[in-house]
């Protein structure tokens, strides 16, 4: 008798069957036990192409239960086509509730952003990862990569940071900044901006990273050190944008509260706006700039 015999038919008819979910969960447990270590897993075919969030999708499908509330967003945007489709797929396949508000979500699947709201204990952040190997740019040989991770030999990464500083005067790596997790493994922080790196350090929440195409899962458990690699005399800096968003958030002395992106306009000009649309909407509602009714409508439509 196998696990399949005791499961109802519905369980095996889902996008990801129960035994596949168990395999993913086993990989997640290993990943949590060894923070930052890339655990190989048998990445399944998903209804989305590899490289379009299939890794994040498998993680979310494997960990959600009936009581979970799921948020999926893409580059900070809940309304993105890919995010909306993934959200609908997860809701229909697993019968869970979905939301756009990260404060009430228990599982937040994201592409390339961390919510502006401070996540709490009990929440899980699932990140879609295109390239899980932080050393890919400095070493191509897979065996050598494994050796470097095993021995904590990251001097080639340091050399690339050194060369970057020498050539450009600053470290130009903007997204996916390499970080040392738990003082042991260097990870690629997916293509999240530098802005999102500090919230991962000693976080209350669990971060899971899934790379479907590369078949790797890694994790940053709560209360784990996440140190961006940088030289002692070259401090790590986050992005600086000093233009206020249309939600009215002005930057008081560089103490910015939101990561902003440039939005090109029809007339060729551009404006800067909060990348996290849900957060921005709430700010605008709070400031009386937006009718709360439109928010609800958007939610229903989703």
């Amino acid at each position, binding site marked *: 008798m196998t696990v399949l015999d005791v499961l109802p038919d519905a369980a095996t008819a889902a996008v990801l069957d129960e035994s596949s979910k168990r395999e993913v969960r086993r990989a997640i447990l290993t990943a949590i036990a060894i923070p930052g270590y890339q655990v190989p897993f048998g990445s399944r075919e998903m209804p989305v192409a590899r490289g379009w969030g299939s890794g994040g999708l498998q993680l979310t499908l494997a960990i959600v239960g009936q009581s979970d509330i799921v948020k999926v967003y893409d580059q900070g945007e809940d309304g993105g086509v890919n995010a909306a489709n993934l959200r609908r797929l997860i809701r229909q396949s697993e019968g869970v509730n979905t939301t756009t508000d990260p404060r009430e979500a228990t599982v937040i699947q994201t592409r390339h952003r961390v919510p502006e709201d401070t996540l709490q204990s009990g929440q899980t952040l699932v990140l879609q990862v295109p390239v899980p190997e932080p050393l890919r740019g400095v070493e191509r040989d897979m065996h050598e990569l494994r050796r470097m991770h*095993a021995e904590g*030999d990251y*001097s080639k990464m*340091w*050399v690339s940071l050194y*060369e970057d500083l020498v050539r450009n005067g600053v470290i130009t790596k903007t997204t996916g900044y390499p970080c040392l997790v738990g003082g042991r493994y260097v990870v690629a922080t997916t293509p999240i901006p530098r802005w999102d790196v500090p919230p991962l350090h000693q976080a209350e929440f669990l971060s899971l990273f899934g790379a479907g195409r590369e078949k790797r899962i890694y994790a940053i458990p709560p209360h784990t050190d996440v140190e961006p690699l940088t030289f002692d*005399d070259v401090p790590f800096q986050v992005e600086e944008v000093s233009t206020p968003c249309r939600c009215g958030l002005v930057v008081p002395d560089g103490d910015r509260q939101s990561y902003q992106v440039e939005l090109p306009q029809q007339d060729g000009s551009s404006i800067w706006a909060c990348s996290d649309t849900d957060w921005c909407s709430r700010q605008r509602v709070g400031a009386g700039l937006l009718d709360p009714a439109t928010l609800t409508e958007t939610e229903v439509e989703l």
Partner: protein
Amino acid sequence: MTVLITDQAQAAMDGAAGAALTVNGLTKHYGPILGCQDVSFNVAPGEALGIIGESGSGKSTVMRCVAGDQDASSGSAQMSSVDGGRTDVLTMAPSDRRALRVSELAVVYQDPSEGLDLAVSAGGNIADRLTAAGWRNFGQIRERAAELLDRTDVPLDRMDDPVRTYSGGMRQRVQLAKALANRPPLLLLDEPTTGLDASVAAGVLDLIRDLLEETGVAAVVVSHDFKVIEMLTRRCLVMHRGEVVEEGLTDQLLEDPQHPYSQRLVGAARG
């Protein structure tokens, strides 16, 4: 003729006590082919020992086994800087041996591409060794790299160019600078000037001799060229078909070789 025997050389000849490197019965087989057989020697702190022999005599095999590039079939090697000379470095775990390559010994290869990343700048190559040794201050790394490159006569305005764009002699100078970056107690030089033209080779040799004196690093110099051995070492081994056939002070060996093979070798060198 009278031969000046230095204290160092005397100490090394007397025995292994306090030697920077002690090698005993080192043997390496490549399948049925013999690499080297029962090679034993020791190197005193600050001493430079030469290993000479023709191509295929096993001298590079000895060096590669000591450096950890290859696994020895049998034998032992101790370094005074590693656990006070009590641990056989040949039996250490591969990861520990690689760590030794940073903290306790450095290798300068005949082919610079073995010791350097040619796509990276000279400063970056030195930073590689320094960051591996735990340096995390950009300013200090930069300063130390410039100091080393200046000392090894690499023009500082070329410091940030990829090593690929350097001439052969300059690449060897960068290899030397990198090897000595974190002041390891032992330096292994494998044919450091072979392949360079005569005038460039002479310049690099002068530099190596000066650096050995200045830094007081213990060194093993492997070469097929008596001129190199004569210039850099006071004591040397002659290897032939994988075995040490003669051992002695370099001057004496050159003046009065005992083994027939050494006589042939010296005869050939003297023309």
